[in-house]
């Protein structure tokens, strides 16, 4: 094959290129209120079949492992089912004796993470559940280890999740025993502390030991109480003897997550979800 050099002399081509660059810059300058409808329109039209294909692939990828797990669970469930009515009755009787309510439960939607190749993928990513599955904006997204992020926007079949690494992410947090409260935010995109969280706004008189588990406090009503955010790994900075900041190693790294749960309902009685997670760390 030979390529003719004459085709590179087109002034129209240069103008087209400059036009595309100008449109790209305009897209970068668009306010968020314009970006989201444009992104959504593209995802729901041109990209819809490709996202469906990616979702199917993700489902297939995990189906073999799931089959083995489901088979094992089914066998266990059959065994347990034989004793279930008796156990339920006994549980209810003991709870009533102790004055406890029913076990905490929360509704959720499972979803696959549709990762994209790109340096900014850990900040926001798509998940394979949307409005049709009952997902709403600001729903909390978790994995078995802890908080992944919150739903930023919802399409019919997919949703955009802003992870804890997103510069605008903030969560009200506390030490697992409730002794210290603060705000958790991403550490930033510069320096050795990238992909870490910061526990900010801790009163100066409060010390938080290393390895303390930090969980969401539930204040603000967006993220339920008790979801692990990470563990303290050391002090960050202090502001004029007024407040302290601590570095927190996140419970979950967004790039490593393949499946998530989107919490679509608040826990009963506004209770804590702490016991439902497998986070590491300890009480101070």
């Amino acid at each position: 094959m030979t390529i003719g050099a004459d085709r590179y002399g087109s002034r129209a081509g240069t103008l087209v290129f400059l036009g595309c660059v100008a449109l790209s810059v305009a897209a970068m300058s668009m306010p968020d209120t314009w970006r989201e409808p444009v992104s959504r329109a593209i995802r729901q039209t041109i990209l819809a079949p490709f996202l469906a294909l990616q979702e199917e692939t993700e489902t297939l990828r995990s189906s073999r492992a799931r089959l083995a797990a489901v088979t094992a669970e089914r066998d266990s469930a059959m065994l347990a089912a034989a004793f279930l009515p008796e156990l339920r009755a006994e549980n209810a009787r003991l709870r009533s004796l102790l004055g406890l309510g029913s076990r905490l439960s929360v509704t959720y939607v499972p979803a696959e993470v549709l990762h994209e190749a790109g340096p900014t993928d850990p900040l926001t990513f798509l998940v394979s559940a949307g409005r049709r599955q009952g997902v709403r904006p600001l729903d909390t997204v978790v994995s078995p280890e802890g908080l992944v992020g919150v739903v930023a926007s919802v399409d019919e079949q997919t949703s955009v999740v802003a992870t804890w690494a997103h510069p605008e992410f903030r969560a009200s947090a506390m030490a697992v025993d409730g002794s210290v409260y603060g705000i958790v935010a991403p550490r930033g995109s510069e320096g050795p502390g990238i992909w870490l969280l910061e526990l900010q706004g801790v009163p100066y008189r409060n010390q938080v030991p290393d390895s303390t588990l930090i969980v969401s406090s539930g204040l603000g009503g967006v993220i339920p109480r008790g979801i692990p955010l990470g563990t303290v790994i050391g002090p960050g900075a202090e502001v004029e003897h007024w407040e302290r900041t601590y570095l927190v190693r996140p419970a979950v790294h967004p790039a490593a997550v393949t499946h998530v749960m989107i919490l679509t309902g608040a826990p009963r009685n506004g209770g804590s979800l702490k016991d439902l997670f497998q986070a590491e760390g300890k009480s101070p």
Partner: protein
Amino acid sequence: MRKSDRYRFWIVLIGLVLLHFSVRTRLGDDRIAPDFLLLALLMYTIRAAPGPSAVAGFAVGLLRDALTPASFGSAALAHTLVGYLSSWAKAVFFAENLFVNGCILFGGTWVRNLVVVLASGELKGSPLAWELLVWSPLQSLTTAAVGVVVLWTLGRWVSVRVGDA
């Protein structure tokens, strides 16, 4: 050139797009897995004129932006630049050589990542260095390797000038 060869070129491009949304997630870490979508774009642009290449790059970039809205517009800018420059690079090197094409695929992927991280402004300092000196070269390498394999195995199918198609 047979008439059917023109259609085979587009079939290869569509195949690469489908691979991007199906196989890529099984190929390991997202940061180094080959980018089939960019590969399809580059295979188009090294055979097309700069103007249509820029338009194709802009379109692919806009699709990327819709998938990663954290830095909307940066992928469109990056893919436009890469599409246009790769088309020009082919004119400069001119020769139809597998090694040259591999170098264009490698450089195109790296430049795309460079423009995305700079335009989005999300990474600075050492993370930026890691991205540009470690992850991007690795992804460029895997993308170029897949591209070379495609060109080597399906060379006759993809050696079609788009203007002829």
